[in-house]
């Protein structure tokens, strides 16, 4: 099969995408660029700069950044631990991580509400241990906990996948050649995990900006994400034009920020090199 034919494998997806992603997107764009009367306007897009919307947007950005970072910081040690503890049954591990997510989203959030509330399980446990109860319910912290809980497995899985296949020989060889644990991580594990990390960031960062249900249930409805505003415009205010406009603005922002992270060919080729060499001639690259 030549390159051209192989590319065609993506064509069913391309057709599907045009039919069910691009066309609905055009519907949204039409709303975004018109006012209630149907006349062309860019006001709905620019509305992202209004003080209230901008504040909600920046707040969402902050939540999303912190949550993504926390997910990454929690995921890498876990991946390393799993490797170290030789939990060889990888499929089992994957399942174990994702299994909690098979309980409905709302049920999970309500459970967290019960855990964090002032008379909740966490404070009960703390008091039993003779510690001071915490006032986490209906705060920023509760939102962070909820979002991290919901998205952690989606960060963990791609990273885990990316580095689970690194043969132990490669790492052993590196160690034999004098590499410390830190060098092993920065020179082998981390570079190999980058494609997984990118997927993880995409899956975690964007949805966490719009997860308004978490803000409503765990944040006590006192804090407002851009998702809350979009939802309000669509349902309670019935202002689909503004809702679409804000959505499009959000989309543009994410696309611009992603343009910097999308496929970096140099990194990719480098990775392939490491992989191929890694599986066939462990350690050579290191020696060279």
């Amino acid at each position, binding site marked *: 099969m030549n390159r051209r034919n192989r590319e065609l494998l993506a064509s069913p997806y391309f057709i599907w995408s045009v039919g069910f992603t691009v066309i609905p997107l055009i519907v949204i764009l039409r709303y975004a660029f018109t006012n209630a009367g149907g006349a062309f306007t860019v006001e709905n897009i620019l509305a992202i700069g209004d*003080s209230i919307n901008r504040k909600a947007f920046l707040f969402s950005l902050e939540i999303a950044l912190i949550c993504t970072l926390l997910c990454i910081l929690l995921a890498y040690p876990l991946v390393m631990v799993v490797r170290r503890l030789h939990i060889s049954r990888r499929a089992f591990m994957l399942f174990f991580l994702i299994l909690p997510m098979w309980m409905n989203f709302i049920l999970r959030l309500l459970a967290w509400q019960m855990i964090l509330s002032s008379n909740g399980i966490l404070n009960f446990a703390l008091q039993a241990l003779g510690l001071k109860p915490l006032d986490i319910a209906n705060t920023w912290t509760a939102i962070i906990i909820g979002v991290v809980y919901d998205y952690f497995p989606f960060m963990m899985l791609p990273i885990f996948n990316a580095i689970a296949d690194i043969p132990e020989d490669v790492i052993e060889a590196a160690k034999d050649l004098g590499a410390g644990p830190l060098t092993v991580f920065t020179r082998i594990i981390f570079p190999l995990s980058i494609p997984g990390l990118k997927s993880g960031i995409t899956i975690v960062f964007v949805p966490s900006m719009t997860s308004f249900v978490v803000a409503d249930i765990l944040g006590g409805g006192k804090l407002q994400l851009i998702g809350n505003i979009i939802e309000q415009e669509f*349902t309670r205010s019935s202002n689909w034009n503004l809702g679409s406009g804000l959505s499009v603005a959000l989309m543009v922002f994410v696309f611009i920020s992603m343009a910097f992270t999308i496929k970096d060919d140099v990194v990719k080729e480098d990775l392939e090199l490491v992989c191929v060499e890694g599986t066939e001639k462990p350690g050579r690259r290191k020696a060279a």
Partner: protein
Amino acid sequence: MNRIMRAGLALGLSVVTALSVIGCGNAAGGGKQTLTVFNYSEYLDPDVIDQFTEETGIEIKYEEALTPEDMYTKYKAGAISYDLLCTADYMLARLIQEGEAQPIDISSFENKDNIGERYWEFSRAFDPENKYTVPHFWGTIGILYDTTKVHGEIDSWDVLFNGEYAGDIIMQNSIRDSFMITLKYLGYSLNTTDEAEIRAAYEAMKAQKPDVEAYLVDEARDEVVAGNAAMAVVYSGEAYLGHQYNENLRYTIPKEGSNVWIDSWMVTKNCKNMEAAQKFLDFLCREDIAQKNFEYIYYSTPNEAVIANLSDEERADESLVPNMDAMQNCEVCVMNDEAATELMNELWKELKAN
């Protein structure tokens, strides 16, 4: 790995097979009369639907929504041709105004007289001639509070705003409800379209925000039951349930007055089978059916026959059968003024942003 994939594949295939069997089962019943009914979730005993089909042979396609706005969006999109829908007073006002309702021949109902006269009176606020709507459930908005956590009697909205219970208050996370009670607290009509009055309400809510523990919709009752807050603004039906779980809880309609709300049925202009639709509505008014629904939902029913069957204790419960004296200052919400609604929406966003 392969084993898991194979197991997954087998599971997937069996599911597909099961689905296609179900699909065929559904397709088999052609030629029957059907009604497509749109209602709030958990607002009709599912057994009642089965019983209706058994008795009349008319199939019900039942669809649920969370809020009147969700319902309006889906109805207006025309995605599904609904025959009947049950929604809130102000939304009914809007739908009737937009010409979406079909007149119902209520006088032909066998069970018309089960619905008390005063509920038809309430309905006139949005349906002046009583020809488009049939009441389903009704109630008030008030304060549910924990008697062990408050001092003195709670009889005014003031307790929510005077800072005495800072950090112990749960407000409704709903634009309309929050504005309505604040307007009432300030002594205005909850149907006001006056910009100055609406802005005054916003200022009061803004000053109140630091004292509010949370703005919740659905979980407000549970938070008071669990003792996480001293008081919450809730619908009367929720208050009844709250009292069942924690007997220290009381419900009050503040003396400044409140909102009395009615959720009623209407027949849409798309309905082709008026006879079946009326049969369904009449069926809902029947004593045994209304009784079933009441026991399933425990909101205040407009069905006098059911109220007559209540125990004395239940009838004395203000959250179940609101006391008419306490309701003197209460109003039905019918405000559909575009500018005023938009202003409230904007101010609500501002409130949340601070």
